[in-house]
């Protein structure tokens, strides 16, 4: 998967026609093979743009940035990124007319070891759902399967699961990088930052990490698109996808096979209801 040439052509065309102010794409690191997101406002820098299977990050995250607010933007999206973009549009966070979206039919991206990322192996929507221009050959929608980690964990006993997750919460340093890197966490004042709350108090105890990660994942339940920006940003390399995948599979099984951001104008699972939702767990 190498679309560097096409993206450079489109970007220079957009700048020449004065359609955008800023182009959001990827450039190569100066010190290794990996790529970082970059904001280009000068047509001279277009030659820096690249797009290969190492373009892992979700660029929709940069739409909530103060540098990009109220600007005309061009950006590159993969399948999962376009789902989060779709949710940002439905939740009125960005305006569609200010965006020029280049959709990439994604064949999966690789992690730092060069292996295909796990969420790409389980990807349900590899083709972009919202775009102005499409690059690559669409491969169609795939069947949803419950994550192997989730099925493995639910087979374990209560005490084993408690020990496993205690290890995760223990290693969290409460840096909030997961929240910052999440394209769907756009609240100006996040509930995890409240200074008056004595339970958070900025401390990095296991207790406060439990509270923060659980609250965070439940606020994203029904909206998380499994782009794993949070996991890529986590300095402690915590498997944060377990919390999201668990919510996602429960929502998929119980609420009419809901998948976040796949259908335009479809809001998160918690913004709607059905009279036949499961009720058997309530006394």
């Amino acid at each position: 998967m190498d679309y560097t040439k096409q993206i450079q052509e489109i970007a220079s065309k957009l700048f020449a026609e004065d359609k955008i102010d800023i182009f959001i794409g990827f450039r190569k690191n100066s010190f290794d093979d990996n790529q970082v997101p970059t904001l280009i406002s000068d047509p001279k820098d277009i030659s820096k743009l690249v797009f290969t299977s190492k373009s892992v990050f979700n660029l929709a995250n940069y739409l909530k940035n103060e540098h990009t607010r109220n600007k005309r933007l061009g950006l590159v999206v993969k399948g999962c990124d376009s789902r989060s973009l779709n949710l940002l549009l439905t939740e009125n966070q960005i305006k569609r007319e200010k965006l020029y979206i280049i959709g990439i039919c994604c064949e999966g991206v690789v992690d730092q070891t060069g292996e295909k990322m796990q969420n790409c192996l389980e990807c349900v929507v590899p083709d972009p759902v919202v775009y102005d221009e499409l690059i690559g050959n669409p491969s169609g929608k795939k069947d949803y399967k419950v994550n192997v980690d989730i099925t493995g964990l639910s087979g374990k006993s209560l005490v084993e699961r408690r020990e496993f997750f205690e290890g995760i919460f223990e290693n969290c340093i409460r840096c909030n990088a997961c929240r910052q890197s999440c394209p769907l966490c756009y609240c100006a004042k996040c509930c995890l930052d409240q200074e008056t709350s004595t339970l958070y108090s900025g401390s990095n105890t296991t207790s406060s990490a439990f509270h923060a990660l659980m609250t965070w994942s439940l606020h994203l339940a029904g909206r998380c698109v499994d782009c794993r920006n949070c996991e890529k940003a986590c300095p402690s390399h915590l498997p944060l996808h377990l919390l999201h995948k668990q919510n996602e599979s429960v929502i998929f099984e119980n609420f009419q096979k809901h998948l976040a951001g796949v259908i335009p104008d479809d809001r998160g699972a918690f913004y709607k209801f059905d009279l036949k939702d499961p009720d058997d767990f309530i006394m």
Partner: protein
Amino acid sequence: MEAEVKEKIISIEKPEIVAPENWQPVIIGILCNWCSYAGSDLTGTSRIQYPPNIRIIRVPCSSRVDPWFIIKSLQATADGVLISGCHPGDCHYISGNYFARRRFLVTKKLLNMVGFHENRVQFSWVSAAEGPKFAKVVAKVTDDIKKLGPLHLYKKENFDK
């Protein structure tokens, strides 16, 4: 006279923790203002006994309950949480409890995933006329949590020192 031998109550999540003598669970009850809170009031005015382990918080609607109310209760002092609202179709705000129902299911499953017994957090629909039902629900929840033992997971005071 034979001395009564009491069975030790062991925490189900952490088997190494044994409850102290005469341990009583702390249960946080989050009740909707229009149905369950009025229902609990009826239980009192009808002079029906129910376990005093429950501490009641009144909220405008069951959909006011953000999942972190539950998490915060469990992290603070509670051994269990009971959330109660209007029956489906009876919501004062028309559809609040339908939204809440979805959130409760996901919250319950996630808490179970990270190692809380599924009976730690329970939900019920109690209407304003169901005083006896409220007493029954509280008795059942208290009984369940007494069997599960004290909750010693992620408690704030264990980490403050």
